[in-house]
């Protein structure tokens, strides 16, 4: 064990869809507070890693550990048994997720989207939840939009509300699945600015899947390059982007640059 406790650890995790192996005995570990960027070609399994952590997908082999406890298993005798719903519920408390397509609740106002979940799930009082929601909406620059419905917002605004909603649950670990890839280019920066604030604040462990290479380089402590359901290479951003060791990493970055993206 390192001196810092691990927030997330995958040990030999395999994920199958029928005969298709999407993750192949994947292992990774993320110390608490670390900011990780997951990059890799389409279909490499990046989203799958996050969805497994969010308990949205089951695993077929290996173990996942969150804050030192097994996520998909429970201790039973000497070994492990499959997790029960109460166990998953207890574990999810540590984790929050921001989706590519926002998934805001359309029947609730912006304010309700952020204030209701803590009341429902954590039993926070209404007054306190409303106050925190206002603070968070100010943080993401949407203090004026509380009374609007999601359908009345732009994509960038929706994603900022989604981030505020996830933060309202105060998770120790935040997962972001391509939070800007469904946005018009001119709206990307406003969302990145919010992510930057969260990263700088420091305490939260972040796992970010992104195609925004320069942003990944800027905010992450470490880059994981996935291909074919396994981690091909990992390291500090500068090393990965300037001096990749693996041929596949090099090829991927070359394609990204050829497609007109900056990696510096």
């Amino acid at each position: 064990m390192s001196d810092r406790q691990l927030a997330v650890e995958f040990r030999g995790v395999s994920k199958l869809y029928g005969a298709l192996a999407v993750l192949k005995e994947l292992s990774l570990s993320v110390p608490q507070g670390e900011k990780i960027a997951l990059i890799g070609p389409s279909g490499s399994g990046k989203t799958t890693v996050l969805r497994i952590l969010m308990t949205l997908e089951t695993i077929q082999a290996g173990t996942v550990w969150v804050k030192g406890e097994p996520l998909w298993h429970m201790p039973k005798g000497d070994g492990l048994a499959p997790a029960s719903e109460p166990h998953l519920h207890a574990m999810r408390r540590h984790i929050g997720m921001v989706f590519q397509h926002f998934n805001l609740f359309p029947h609730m106002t912006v304010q309700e989207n952020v204030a209701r979940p803590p009341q429902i799930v954590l039993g926070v009082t209404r007054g306190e939840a409303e106050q925190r929601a206002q603070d968070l909406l100010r943080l993401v620059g949407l203090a004026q939009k509380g009374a609007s419905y999601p359908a009345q917002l732009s994509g960038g605004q929706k994603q900022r509300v989604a981030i505020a909603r996830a933060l309202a649950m105060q998770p120790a670990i935040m997962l972001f699945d391509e939070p800007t890839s469904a946005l018009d280019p001119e709206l990307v920066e406003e969302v990145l600015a919010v992510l930057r604030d969260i990263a700088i604040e420091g305490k939260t462990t972040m796992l970010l899947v992104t195609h925004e290479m320069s942003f990944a380089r800027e905010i992450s402590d470490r880059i994981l390059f996935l291909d074919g359901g396994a981690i091909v290479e990992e390291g500090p951003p500068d090393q990965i982007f300037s001096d990749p060791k693996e041929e596949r990493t090099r090829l991927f970055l070359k394609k990204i640059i050829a497609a007109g993206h900056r990696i510096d």
Partner: protein
Amino acid sequence: MSQFSDYAWMILDGTWVTVKITVVASVVAVIVALLTGVARTSKFFWIRLGPTLFVELFRGTSCYVQLFWAFFALPFIGISLTPFVASVLVLGANVGSYGSEVVRGAIAGVPRGQTEASVALNFTKLQRFRHVVFPQALVAMLPPAGNLFIDLLKLTPLTSLITMSDLTYNAMAVRQQTGSTFIALATILVGYFLMSSAIAWAIGRIERRASRGLETGPRAA
């Protein structure tokens, strides 16, 4: 003139019975539709089985056959229902079975991302259903539900065949006593039309209120 007022009174009296049957049977229908509709979204076969058989049974025959069966055949196996109870149970179960499909479809139609977001926020299964899935499904249920309430109203004349003195029954009695067939039947046709239209209007209002925030593309949120 007193005779005319007698007949008018019979029509009003019948209307009141029709309204009573419609309201009580609607409550039964909503309960049946929700219980069986929700159960049929279960991933467990054994939970789906009973409600599915129930719904198919009631959709496979007409309300009229069911009403006669409940009133005339059921006593042979030791269950005697009053005309009113037989009426509201059969109409409720019949329309509720069609409503079941509306409920099931509306729940299944809530985008998967909504459930996933509520899992990510650590809602329990019940909380997901209550705060996220059901409120959104409800909006989708309302327009077809409005039509089903009208269908239910339109089925109530069948209860006159098992001796309920509803609007149709009383109008037919007026027809017998006065011989003015056209007036009696035209009156109640218009009566039913007005009641149906009132239901359509009311549902339209509720619909507009319930769809607040959802009018511009709920799927995009």
